[in-house]
């Protein structure tokens, strides 16, 4: 089980409170987590990564275990603490806009 913390606006859009818990099949990568997240909450399609390119939207960041994973390969393994559910994956709206 992987824990994901969404930014406020995406929690509102997905109509969830608090953390989201996801079961991810296969290796725990960013891509696998986002695939599972979008499968559970289809309204999040296109809000975190581009529909066509699957690239992270510019003002969205991925943090975990006090590391910035935003520029890591989407197919790289997530930290063990995230993969085991000890630590959450944080999806964050970048500080921008004042």
């Amino acid at each position, binding site marked *: 089980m992987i824990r994901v913390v969404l*930014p*406020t*606006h*995406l929690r509102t*859009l997905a109509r969830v409170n608090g953390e989201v818990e996801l079961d991810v099949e296969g290796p725990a990568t960013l891509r696998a987590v986002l695939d599972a997240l979008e499968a559970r909450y289809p*309204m999040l*399609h*296109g*809000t*975190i990564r*581009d*529909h*066509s390119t699957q690239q992270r*939207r510019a*003002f*969205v960041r991925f943090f975990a275990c006090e590391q910035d994973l935003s520029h890591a390969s989407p197919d790289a393994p997530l930290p063990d603490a995230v993969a085991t559910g000890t630590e959450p994956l944080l999806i964050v*709206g*970048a500080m*921008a*806009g004042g």
Partner: protein
Amino acid sequence: MSRVRVLVGTRKGAFVLTSDGTRERWDVSGPHFGGWEIYHLKGSPADPNRLYASQSSSWFGQVIQRSNDGGKTWQTAGNKLVYEGVPGTHLWYDGTPRPWEFARVWHLEPSLTDPDTVYAGIQDAALFRSVDGAQTWQELPGLRGHKSAPLWQPGAGGLCLHTILLDPSHPGRIFIAISAAGVFRSDDAGTTWQPMNRGLRSEQIPDPTAEVGHCVHRIAMHRSRPGVLFMQKHWDVMRSDDAGDSWHEVSGNLPTDFGFPIDVHAHEPDTIYVVPITSDSEHYPPEGKLRVYRSRTGGNEWEALTQGLPQRDCYVNVLRDAMAIDALDPCGLYFGTTGGQVYGSADAGDSWAPIVRDLPPVLSVEVQTLP
């Protein structure tokens, strides 16, 4: 007694203003989608409880919302608006080629007859259509495939398709306007398009009378006379009496012919309204006086409507999609400002009062007349 529902899109959410036919007391609901830019929301003429909203943010991109109960509750609809084929390029501000890139939905235009059919005008300029209540979208690629498209350049707000007019008497006839390409018309339900800019003159482009390249801010028609179109261009207020085939200027005695919205009286097809703005670099009313101008002669002869509007120290703007007219008699007018006010008039513009004063900057205003 009839009611009206005013749909207001702002930089930080949507608001729904409702009143009975007297239009004296208003209920305000919102913000809906607080924190998101709501470029536009509009109701279906075929089912007034069906509303569509364009919700977007720099962080999380584009979302489309749909309501089946007049805005009380909303459901997230489809937001996958992907250009057909290889997008190609248009021109950037500096004249270099730039690939088409989706930015946002500027305008949603529901079908006149089918609540599940809705058109979306987007930036970078293209026209999309959904026939399943905004669940899925398909581009009408003939527009962006027009031979002139590689030469289209953005206006200050981006290369946006901001106006969609559906002709009620000619099924399949659609007018659209793009800043800064101009007006295009399709007579085959959006398959093929022709530029409709003859008679426009824009000194800001190399060939002032070019077939495309004009910064058209808004066009409007009266349902009873769809062959007559009115236009607020970047500069100049224009009129066409032949469904866009040609245009002539009707700015007449306006204090400035720069502005954004233009609209037509509900019952008098030759009565039109504009909000003059000082200039393209001074996006505020001349002399700090917020004035709607009305022409009862289809242009050229204009009168200032000032009663109830601020006549000193007012430096707000009124954006292109931020004026609407209800169908009551006398008809009601509504417009929103970048200062967050929504003004209403229940007497066709003779007098005005603020409905709300302190919203976020207003991007769009639409009105529904309800039984």
